[in-house]
């Protein structure tokens, strides 16, 4: 069921996820389109998330934006509900921070990331080059997660509880918590058309799933749901975003993740398991949460013969 409407306020709106925004020419969403989008959101009872460009919007836009309850995803900290950045320096925040970086930066800056975690309430690390991970990168990622886990353990034992998507989400989840693109959320682009998510818009403007004039038209919409994802519905790496765009990019199917996505998610899951067990050695911690079981695989695809 649809719950969220993401509105790209400009063609150059910041990317807050795996995809890169290739557009450099500003194209503000027409005011009328924005109003219609908000109206639709109100009628369908959708929570609106605005994605901002890196410049100040005209006053009349700001007024329209404020006319409804919403979240702001911005490339600046000021007035944001989610702050998106690709720089670690001077990151400190009470609001969630999305840090978009590639694997080389991630591997080279474990220390800095540990420092950032201490200064935020929540950090979402989003890797921009998941599909390029090699076996060697998996080993490095595992090692990095181990180190971040050690840092977090100390922080939690000290009594603070910042969240890091890669490690603490799985500890706290009771079920799958995915992006939901195409299922629980859709995106309205500046051209007045709907898309599964911003990445689909930036990849091909013709790949829309309807528009404001004619309404939503999602073909094969069941394929965006978890119950129609043969690998994912057997999986318990609940923190995985199950990125639909990455799925389609790597396997050509929106319901099937690549090997790389699955391995990364399971390395995170396993590291979460270790963190949870380690924190629990100090005393009661998340008592309502079940144990994360030990598993002997990193890709549920390898266990497909055991599915029913």
């Amino acid at each position, binding site marked *: 069921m649809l719950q969220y409407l993401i509105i790209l306020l400009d063609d150059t709106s910041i990317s807050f996820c795996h995809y890169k925004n290739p557009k450099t020419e500003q194209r503000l969403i027409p005011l009328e389109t924005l109003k219609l989008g908000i109206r639709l959101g109100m009628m369908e009872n959708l929570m609106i998330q605005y994605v901002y460009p890196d410049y100040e919007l005209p006053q009349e836009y700001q007024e329209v934006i404020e006319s409804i309850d919403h979240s702001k995803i911005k490339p600046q900290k000021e007035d944001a509900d989610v702050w998106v950045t690709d720089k670690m320096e001077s990151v400190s925040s009470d609001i969630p921070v999305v840090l978009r970086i590639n694997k080389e930066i991630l591997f080279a800056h474990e220390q800095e990331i540990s420092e950032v975690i201490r200064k935020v309430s929540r950090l979402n690390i989003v890797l921009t080059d998941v599909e390029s991970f090699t076996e060697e990168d998996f080993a490095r990622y595992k090692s990095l997660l181990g180190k971040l886990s050690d840092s977090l353990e100390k922080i939690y034992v000290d009594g603070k509880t910042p969240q890091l998507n890669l490690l603490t989400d799985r500890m706290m989840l009771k079920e799958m918590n995915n992006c939901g693109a195409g299922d629980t959320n859709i995106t309205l682009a500046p051209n007045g058309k709907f898309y599964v998510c911003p990445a689909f818009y930036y990849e091909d403007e013709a790949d829309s799933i309807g528009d404001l004039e004619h309404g939503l038209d999602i*073909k*094969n919409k069941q*394929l965006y749901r978890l119950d*129609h994802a*043969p*690998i994912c519905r057997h999986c318990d790496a609940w923190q995985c975003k199950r990125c639909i765009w990455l799925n389609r990019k*790597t*396997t*050509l*199917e*929106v*319901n*099937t*993740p*690549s*090997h*790389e996505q699955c391995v990364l998610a399971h390395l995170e899951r396993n590291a979460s398991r270790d963190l949870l067990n380690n924190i629990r050695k100090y005393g009661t911690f998340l008592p309502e949460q079940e144990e994360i079981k030990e598993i002997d695989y990193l890709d549920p*695809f390898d266990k*497909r013969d055991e599915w*029913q």
Partner: protein
Amino acid sequence: MMKIIKDWQSGMAKNITFIVTKDCQLACKYCYLVGKNEKERMSFDVAKQAIDYILDHESEYREESVVWDFIGGEPFLEIELIDKICDYLKAEMFRRNHHWFNSYRFSFSTNGINYHEEKVQRFIKKNVSHLSIGITIDGTEKKHDLNRVYKHTEKGSYQSVVKNIPLWLEQFPNAGTKVTISSADIPYIKESVLHLYSLGIHEVNINCVFEDVWKEGDDQLFEEQLMSLADAIIDGGYYKDYACSFYSEHLGKPLDKVLQNQNWCGAGRMLSIDAAGNFYPCTRFAQYSLRSKKACIIGNIHDGINNNLLRPFLTLDRRTQSPQECIDCEVAEGCAWCQGENYDAADTDTIYQRATAICKMHKARVHANNYYWNKLYRKLELEGEREEFEKNKKEAKDIIC
């Protein structure tokens, strides 16, 4: 009951297809190969690179057996190339001590027109113990010539094919033929199957096309034809020595949602290679087989196979791709689909939307199939032959591609 020859190695062999040519003497009206042409033919060098890649990766191909399949267009138009490829395959499998050397076949589906030619016959004699050759003869001359016509003249090809049937059956006595049914063929089904039996063909593998070609009333006509054919087969005693794949004991029951959830076809588990050295999960995903979608290439001879592109195929199951009506269907067993047609007909670029144009035809077949087995079992019981029949019966094979 006639012993129906099981699929070699119970259908568990790895199937690897070389699309050696897109040329064909014919332009069959129901042919799903919409992009046939005279220009694209595979070079030996491309075939060699593909073979080297596959044999180099023995650990990734753990099936005990392999079927090296040659397809076109008409494969026997490239018999010299095929001969060279097969010689290379035999020598390489042996030289490398590959496990497939102990268990392989060369397979062909041919229009039969040049079956008698010296080069083709020489090839057959050279490889006879490893060959599986099917000639497509569609039934009576009238039915065959409805669709299987020469490319330039549009003249029917029946006479060119039927003259080679005796030689083919002499060389491959257990061979079966593949018959395709489209809308216009329905009135000729019964007489065609009986005609093929009269030619000495004991196994007729016959199926309806998956494309959306059916007209109002086709299912009724189809059912009548199959009922009438059932009477002829049983009353005429053909059931003892002849087989027709329309009638199966594993057809027409509901399917268990958990235990019977596997995908129907082997797309993704087979491998198809074109003249450019591209790899496909099945020939049906090559561009010349598709009318409305882009080809689904999973790799090539230079870069190998991208396993991520195989994941959707290898995790396909029945329920995920089927509409609720199919999942709940009380006669679902035996209702077939073709993954390539699913993809081609889908509303989006997905293999996860099952094409259901064949629904009414399947239901009609179920009625006729029920009639057939009820009648046959009763006859066998009355004649005291039921036990003997149960002892000798084999699984029928449903060929869909």
